[in-house]
């Protein structure tokens, strides 16, 4: 079907009138265009990026530059080769590049962002038909590709220290070299630990690794039940705070923890996300549903604490198992120790790959949050929240066709056949 032509103009119509023949009502338009929309989202995404540059130094800036350049070059190359018209090309490619950089750790070698960018633009976006047609969020596809292709480069920067990632010390912010690391003894939290002599960065265990270690005692140092009071003569009120090995929660809020470039600084992510909500580019229902369902799953999903000598203890309803205060701390740590906030505010809300209606977005958010936490708790997948978003992106067309708001003038019963 094609747009119907306007009624034929008078034969003597001036040329100017013909130029305006394509304009149709409404003759006033809202000022926002697709390009502004991408650029504002890009600006919001620059918040976590700047936080990442501050926390991880110039390595982070290089990763971001490589990934943005890679995205733009890949986009230009694709459209040059296929001779397809590049619609909305560069602004969306920039956005994809910045979002991709947010998902990568700062210490990755130079080829990782380039490969991820190529996958994001060519495999996930251009092949599907460009903006408006892709099924999966392109930056996440790029991240998944490099997670599969370069598992060691992405998870083990220092082979001598398994599961330890670097973060700049508080007195070497922005200026330090994140690869110049040293492990510190008696770590008391990022805010209280100055840089060790001769080094810029602290080598720390990822909070996710510590939390996973509670369940899988591969490393006895992480054992949850190691100092668990047991036996009938437990002092009432003494709680087995296995979480005492974790850093203080303010570190997780400000970003003083190892992690990928954009995921660590929760405060900045939330502020940038709320700005997008304020601009109406993100509906508040989607991130809220994402976070709420993640919290609910964490509150009720049973976990199995493991200790030395094959001692295990299953905890049902972790929120209330040891009192609400311990449960609250547990849920907060789980939420803040992974890339959940970044996924909820920046990746699940990607317009093309989420459902269109508000109700559909709530379903999508609920599914994302639940799936992300189930993957995180029970399966050993890299970046579980991003994987959950990708999985729910697959279901987006189905959600869009299932969830239909009641059309004006049609009852709920006749919803299937409003015509």
């Amino acid at each position, binding site marked *: 079907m094609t747009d119907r032509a306007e*009624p034929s103009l008078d034969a003597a119509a001036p040329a100017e009138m013909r130029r305006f023949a*394509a304009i149709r009502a409404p003759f*006033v338009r809202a000022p926002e265009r697709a390009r502004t*929309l991408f650029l504002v989202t890009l600006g919001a995404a620059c918040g976590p990026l700047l936080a990442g540059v501050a926390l991880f130094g110039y390595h982070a800036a290089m990763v971001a530059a490589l990934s943005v350049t890679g995205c733009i070059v890949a986009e230009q190359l694709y459209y040059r080769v296929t001779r397809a018209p590049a619609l909305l090309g560069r602004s969306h490619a920039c956005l994809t590049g910045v979002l991709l950089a947010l998902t990568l750790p700062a210490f990755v070698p130079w080829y990782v962002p380039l490969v991820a960018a190529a996958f994001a633009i060519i495999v996930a976006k251009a092949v599907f038909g460009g903006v408006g047609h892709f099924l999966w969020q392109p930056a996440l596809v790029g991240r998944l590709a490099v997670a599969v292709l370069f598992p060691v480069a992405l998870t083990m920067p220092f082979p001598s220290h398994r599961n330890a990632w670097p973060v700049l010390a508080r007195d070497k912010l922005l200026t330090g070299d994140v690869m110049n690391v040293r492990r510190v003894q008696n770590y008391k939290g990022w805010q209280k630990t100055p840089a060790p002599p001769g080094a810029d960065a602290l080598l720390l265990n990822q909070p996710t690794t510590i939390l996973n270690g509670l369940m899988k005692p591969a490393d006895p140092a992480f054992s949850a039940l190691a100092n668990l009071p047991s036996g009938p003569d437990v002092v009432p009120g003494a709680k087995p705070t296995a979480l005492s090995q974790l850093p203080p929660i303010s570190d997780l809020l400000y970003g003083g923890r190892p992690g990928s470039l954009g995921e660590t600084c929760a405060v900045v992510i939330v502020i940038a996300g709320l700005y997008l909500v304020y601009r109406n580019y993100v509906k508040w229902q989607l991130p809220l549903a994402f976070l709420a369902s993640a919290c609910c799953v964490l509150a009720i999903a049973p976990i199995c604490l493991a200790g030395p000598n094959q001692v295990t203890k299953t905890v049902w309803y972790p929120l209330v198992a040891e009192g609400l205060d311990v449960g609250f701390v547990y849920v907060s740590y789980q939420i803040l120790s992974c890339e959940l906030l970044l996924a909820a505010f920046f990746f699940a809300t990607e317009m093309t790959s989420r459902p269109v209606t508000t109700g559909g977005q709530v379903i999508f958010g609920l599914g994302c949050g639940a799936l992300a936490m189930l993957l995180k708790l029970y399966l050993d997948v890299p970046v579980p929240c991003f994987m959950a978003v990708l999985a729910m992106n697959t279901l987006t067309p189905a959600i869009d066709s299932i969830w239909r708001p009641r059309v004006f003038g049609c009852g709920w019963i006749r919803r299937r056949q409003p*015509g």
Partner: protein
Amino acid sequence: MIFRRYGQFTGGIDLPDEKDATLESPIVPWRRIERLCVPLGRGASASAHLLVRPAQRVSAGEKIAASDAGGADVFAPLAGTVASLTKASVVTGEGLASVPAVELTDLSAPSPIMPLSPTFDWRSVSPQTLRGQIGGGGLTGPGSSPLPLEVWVRKAFGRKCRTLVLNAMENQPYVTADHRLLVEHGAEVIRGLAMLGTALQIRSVLLAADIRRIDDYREIIGPARMYGIERIALPHKYPIGLPPMLTKVLTRREMPPGGSVMDVGVVIVDVSTCFALYRWVVCGQPQTHRVATVAGERAPQCGNFWIPFGLACRTLVAGAQEPIICGGPMDAVRCGSAVATAATNAVLALDAPLPAPPGPCIRCGWCTDHCPARLNVAALNDAFELGLLQRARRLGARACVECGVCSYVCPARLPLTARVKQLKRTVGRVPTNRAALASMPKDQTGRGES
């Protein structure tokens, strides 16, 4: 409380008001008119037979064409000479249409709205007599309906409607014609409304006005109270001025898809129809003029003008650049060579930029969020691009109220309203599979006896 407050509907959007240029400008006659092409009817099907010959001298208000079936009488707006029988294009709901017209030249000077003395006591006659009096004055139905008013009134009476609403919302940008008419001739409008309520035997008569303008309507409160008309102030969220939305807000009933508000027992009239009705029935003055707003950034002279039917709209903004449009900017059509009719409430010369080429839909969902009919416009756009009529029908394309909000908000600049409108028309024409099967001859469906 002088004006009652009422409810809301889902969707909609706050449009910029843009009415300051003409909000305070009183209605004046258009200065100097050299030529009129008075259209004989508003629809393509309407016809009328001519009562005048070329070169005949006619006086103002003289009947120049009598209605055949389905048309209204036509009167000469000004005194002049019949030059020829020509064609003129008029604005209809579908765009421009060409209708026969009478060209008048050598015209008398235009006059302002004359105060008229009542010659007919409408309150002493029965509703049936009153309904009979409505015909013959060249009146047409409200809005863009091309029906003559007496046919429209008969239809509304036959539906046994229970609510009559005067729609004074006028919530499109720039347009102030109804507002000025209500400010300056509010008492006559209210009497026309009350008369229509009596003719239709409707008890519940409402006046819906914009909450920002009600301070200007103090003059009409007395007459409205006298005739028992309930006054309601509504917020200005567009498209509350459309009949389906007004019905929803005032009565909580939803218009069925593809129907009209009369299907749910509501009659909606506009201000200029009530005004013309009063002047015809009570004072015997046929409808030959209407108030139109001339505005826009490029209009040489902004204001509210009392313009005769048949005046070429382009002359009102002579010298302005394209686009020149007829009607409120949300559902206007480009003016072309259209002439003024009873539906021409505004002629605007906007400073609209050249249209950017539409991009691909980025599925932002704003069209769906703001659609007052709660349609999934993005999915309808997919159905349009893929040519899937049955999917469009299932998505409820016929419920579209043609407000233009989806095109207004679309960041990809897609002509969504035009597309959904076209889907709506096509879906309305093509029967459903089941109806098509039922209407087929039996031997074709394979279930015949022989």
